[in-house]
């Protein structure tokens, strides 16, 4: 169960990033015909980031302590000290932006350039933060991997 949650967490994060790209593309080509799709995509970003928060949060508070101990004994302690510590707090930035996005999309997007810019800037910030967080997650996983490889090398010697 732990591994399923661990896989679902970044999967929903990637889905949120993809939906943010969808928001950007639809908003750049806004018309009366696609404004409802923009609002749907904004809502999906919010839902997917919310799921990422709940699943990642559950895994973090329930299972991460074991991995943290492994990382800190290995050759990449910065995978926790820098990447995890930054990631767990940085995550709240796209979370807040994702909850704001459907509210921003309620403005008159078709006739107001300013309203469109707010939606596009918010989506772009979610994408940038999301990619940074996905990269940090990969580095944390690698921190566990190099620690375990290091341990098995020492045992083999």
């Amino acid at each position, binding site marked *: 169960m732990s591994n399923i949650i661990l896989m679902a967490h970044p999967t929903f994060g990637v889905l949120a990033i993809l939906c943010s790209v969808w928001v950007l593309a639809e908003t750049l080509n806004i018309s009366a015909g696609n404004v409802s799709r923009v609002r749907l995509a904004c809502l999906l970003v919010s839902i997917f980031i919310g799921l990422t928060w709940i699943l990642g949060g559950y895994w973090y*508070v329930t299972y991460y302590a074991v991995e943290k101990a492994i990382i800190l004994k290995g050759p990449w302690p910065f995978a926790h000290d820098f990447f995890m510590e930054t990631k767990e707090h940085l995550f709240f930035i796209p979370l807040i932006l994702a909850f704001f996005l459907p509210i921003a999309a309620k403005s008159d997007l078709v006739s107001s350039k300013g309203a469109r810019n*707010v939606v596009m800037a918010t989506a772009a910030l979610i994408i940038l933060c999301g990619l940074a967080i996905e990269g940090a997650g990969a580095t944390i996983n690698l921190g566990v991997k190099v620690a375990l490889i290091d341990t098995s090398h020492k045992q083999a010697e």
Partner: protein
Amino acid sequence: MSQTQTHDIANSTAAFGMAAAITIVFNTVFAWVKDSYEPLNAAMKAAMGHHWITHGVVDVALFIALGLILSNSAKAKSMTGTALVKLLVIAVVIASGGLAGWFFLV
């Protein structure tokens, strides 16, 4: 010839956009304080079982509360989309840089 910027976004967008910017910066300051003052960290753990859960709930609650409070403010009724974009970008750059810098140095 200069053009006067007009209010071109919904009041709720302006209010919750400002709330998001404030909450994002608060999140970083909260992380600094929590990380350097153990009694706060312990109190947050005691409140909801883990400091990170309390941190997230406080952030979301602050965002909602500020958004509702600011909805009737004069600023929400006059802010332009361009000004809100600048505010959000500056908040995210300062807050994310502040977090990365803090955990790099500490």
